[in-house]
């Protein structure tokens, strides 16, 4: 795994995490969106752990 690949993955992940957090906020009161966003958020956090971050970085 190249360092540049890991860095790019990390940047894209951070961007996705921000988007999903926003989406969760926007979709409050729309369970079919909000609850799926919660699941996506959990999956993104597992990707963050995989890159050596703490799961608490996004809490």
């Amino acid at each position, binding site marked *: 795994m190249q360092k540049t690949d890991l860095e790019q993955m990390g940047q894209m992940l951070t961007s996705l995490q921000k988007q999903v957090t926003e989406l969760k906020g926007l979709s409050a009161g729309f369970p079919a969106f909000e609850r799926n966003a919660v699941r996506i958020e959990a999956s993104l956090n597992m990707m963050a752990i995989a890159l*050596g971050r*703490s799961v608490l970085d996004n809490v």
Partner: protein
Amino acid sequence: MPETSPYWNPYLETLEPERLRDLQLAKFRRIVAWAYERSPYYCELYRQAGLEPGDIRSWDDVRKVPKVEKDMLKDAQAAEPFPYGSRLCVPLSEVSEFRQTSGTTGTPVYQADTWQDWEWWAEAWSYILWAQGYRARDRVFIPFGYNIFVAFWAGHYASEKLGCEVVPGGVLDTASRILKIKELKATAMMGTPTYMLNMADVARERLGVDPAGLSIQRITCAGEPGASIPSTKKRMQEAWGAKVFDHAGATEIGAWSFECAEQPGGMHVNEGLFLVEIEDLNTGELIEEPGRKGKMIITALDRLAQPCLRFDSKDIIEWAAEPCPCGRSYRLIKGGVQGRADDITKVKGVLLSPTAIEEVVRGFNELADEYEVSVERIGDSDKITLKIELNPGAEDQEQQVLARLKDELRLKTNLGYVIEVHPVGSLQRWEVKARRFKDLRRLH
């Protein structure tokens, strides 16, 4: 990820040890702060020790964080909120999973997990299964009674995550499970060593099916140390014609270790997700060098609902001297979990570990899989009775087998045994976790 990657996580699993240690320390500090701020139990525990999360700056500081033991978890559970108590770090509305310990040592511990924690369980199991060769082509049969015990639940979810086809063996009885494996040509399965041997017996004796002739290629064991005991592992591998791998985990902790495809005679600690310390049984001193046994103190670094920080697991482990040929930088523990501090008992002044007896008994082809050991006090002396079964065809060699067995037991454990031979099939058969060692001295 190319199919050829031997690692579930090519980054973390090959990280240089120094960087891995830095990562663990950083995560440890975060999870301690999380627990301190969110859990009345941890806050009080650390305050009483005069510790604040900001005090943890180095590895020496990690050792100052108070350990927790199972009884402490049970005490914390009695507080609010019901049913988890004051160790809980999230609102009850965020808890999505309930599991509990078996309660064999008294009151069970209830374990809360958020959905994210549950994803984390599956992630930890994904390391295990990938390292043991599970891939999307596998059809995984799970002969487990899905229930309140965590057991193989996360193995199910991780198999799905890897893209495997999962067949839940749920409430089927043992014979039906074997027939379903045969019918579907399942390629992998999971279970306790006791149950894997039991299934093989049922296949042969009740169904007339040779389990080695079925399609199972790999088996993941957990719940008991058998898959790291060479003689038990050999029995299972021969019975099923499959590679058998060990894994150790616990409800309160998570899936913290795994044997890789190299079968190096030990298990890797998943050091990206867990911090394992080994402590001398008598002095409490930290053991960092290979070859010295101690008890495991473990922290789950990313589990949030009900963190388990510096948990005194009572598991006896030791670091291996050599790195694994698989290339992972995650350290190996030699021989897996070698016993439990509370199982090791003194008999006639000698420390006796039940796993040592299992290793000897299972090394005799003339003996059946089941055995039972009891220790009782007769006058001022301890008497150890070992009940065994001779396999059909071995009856005419009984005296020679018993003599060899006594010799090997004495060599391995430094103790003498009264050996009773019982008819094959007459000793208790266990479905899940076996309790073959009985210390009757504790009853008096």
